[in-house]
């Protein structure tokens, strides 16, 4: 149920929160704990128009994250004890002029850095610069055929060719320079993209990233994206077929735990946010990406373009919002969209708080990859 031990090496369908028990104990004692992972974007802008894009639902007051802003932010993260920063969130960070500097500066500070991207602007020259700083680089690609890629991702068909070439290049650079970076592909699966599951799994086998992960599509609490969760079970056979294409150096992983959850949550409190917060590409600090839209203003904590992150983190306002989400004033089953980023962490911490989950002693166990991305 907890997903804590689904995979020992590269956990793609589960959570690594059990490897951070010192922080869980501090949280349980009522101390202020710094996030282990922050997911953010360097901009709200994007050069794609994906049909399933949740960022369309996340609009908020835009401000610009400059090189100085992100440098200060990363310095603050290091100071307060954040361990990993992923540039995913609600914008295409690779098109920000601050992208390469942000990755290299974060890595120099000792933070684990990662990126989720459509991969379009990551040509060989940019990849050479950025790959050594990254723990993982994940390409969002929800189709394995040119024309369907164009339809689903809202771009010209030849973008597919360029992205495919960029993936070939990143795999080659990793191999040539013997880099530790994990290169992955990610398919956001809507039931209507079923025809692309096998073509994409085969494309991955040809391009040779480390993995292809196939995940559900999240929706907001009003179901604005129209995700039909009850139709995922019709795809199970094809998904198993895709998984069977895995070999020693290429894994096809289906996020079964979320797909099989059919959009439901087993918990009401959101305990995961203090361990794993999200920032919008506008600089907005909010507990969760699902709360970025201006309508959720009451959960908005501050903006790194105006206030240093360490001051935001230490503010009473930050903790007032975190306490609200962890209190009976809040019910994630009724007041949130489906299957958020913090979902697996929430499941585990909720079970732990209720005395239903105990953490194994992992002090002598090998650490999983990407441990700072919980």
């Amino acid at each position, binding site marked *: *149920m907890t997903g804590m031990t689904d995979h020992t090496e590269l956990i793609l369908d589960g959570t690594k929160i059990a490897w951070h028990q010192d922080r869980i104990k*501090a*949280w*349980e*004692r*009522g*101390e202020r*704990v710094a996030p282990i992972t922050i997911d953010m974007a360097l901009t709200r*802008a*994007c*050069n*794609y*128009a994906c049909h399933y894009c949740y*960022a*369309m639902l996340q*609009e*908020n*007051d835009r401000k610009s994250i400059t090189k100085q802003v992100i440098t200060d932010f990363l310095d603050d993260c290091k100071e307060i004890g954040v361990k990993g920063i992923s540039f995913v969130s609600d*914008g295409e960070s690779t*098109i920000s002029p601050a992208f390469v500097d942000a990755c290299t500066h974060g890595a120099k500070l000792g933070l684990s850095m990662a990126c989720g991207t459509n991969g379009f602007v990551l040509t060989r020259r940019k990849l050479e610069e950025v790959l050594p700083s990254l723990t993982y680089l994940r390409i969002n690609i929800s189709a394995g055929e040119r024309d369907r890629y164009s339809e689903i991702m*809202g771009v010209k068909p030849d973008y597919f060719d360029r992205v495919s070439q960029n993936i070939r290049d990143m795999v080659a650079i990793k191999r040539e320079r013997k880099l530790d970076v994990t290169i992955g592909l990610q398919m956001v699966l809507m039931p209507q993209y079923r025809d692309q599951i096998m073509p994409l799994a085969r494309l991955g086998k040809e391009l040779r990233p480390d993995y292809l992960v196939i995940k559900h599509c999240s*929706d907001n*609490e*009003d*179901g604005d994206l129209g995700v039909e969760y009850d139709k995922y079970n019709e795809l199970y056979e094809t998904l198993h077929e895709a998984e069977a294409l895995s070999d020693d150096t290429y894994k096809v992983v289906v996020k079964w735990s979320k797909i099989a959850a059919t*959009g*439901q*949550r*087993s918990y*009401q*409190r959101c*305990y995961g946010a*203090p361990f794993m917060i999200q920032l919008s590409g506008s600089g907005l600090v909010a507990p969760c990406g699902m709360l970025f*839209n*201006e*309508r*959720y*203003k*009451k*959960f*908005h904590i501050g903006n790194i373009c105006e206030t240093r992150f360490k001051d935001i983190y230490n503010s009473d*306002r930050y*903790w*007032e*919002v*975190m306490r*609200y989400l*962890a*209190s*009976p*004033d809040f*019910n994630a*089953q*009724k*007041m949130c969209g*489906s299957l958020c980023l913090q979902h697996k962490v929430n499941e585990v911490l909720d079970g732990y*708080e*209720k*005395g*239903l989950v105990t953490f194994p002693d992992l002090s002598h166990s090998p650490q999983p990859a990407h441990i700072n991305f919980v």
Partner: protein
Amino acid sequence: MTGAAAAVPPKLPSRIDWTGEGWSVNINLSGDLIADAKVSTDEAGFDGVFLGTLNACLKGMTLRQARDHGVQHACLNATAGKKAPPVSGIMMPANYSPTSRAAAKALRAAIDGVLPIDLVNWNFDDNGLSEAWRKLPIETRRAKLEALIGEFLKQSGQNDAVIVTDIDVHDRVFMQFKPDFPLDDKPIMLMKLERYVRSATGERIELFMSEMKDNNRIRRL
């Protein structure tokens, strides 16, 4: 958007009496709900006032709610009106006080003894809007909410700071601030206002700003 999973109703006793480690739990059930509850201890040093709050909170809950959320509700109620919470981080039964910690343990042991843990079908109880509130005509509900919002704004000296733009069928209140209202004050004001409305109605009313749309499929650079 999520709803209750189809659950097979467990056969419940009409009464639970449990003792262990110096603690007692006595619960009378009326159907699925707790008619009255007494979590108590003979041991010295525990907080009787908190236990009184807990026992009052448990009344009307299902056993499942009581097990999973009862002590949390008591902690929240016990801090109502106090300026600062007892911990600087996240308040939970485990850290609110030694009494809350021991009471949670006793209550869970008592309930687990009669009701098997069901991770799949449990945890869909919700204390959102009461039946009594829902039964009121929508115009009455809207009028009450608008009056309370107006009252709060007047008390804060911000009479025309906010306009209610919509109250939807789920009683979600959507609002708009006047253009010159300080940006940084909006989140704090909304949360305070929501607390005021909830406290006055006893209902879990949610307040939102009007949604911000981005109609560009390719978001502007």
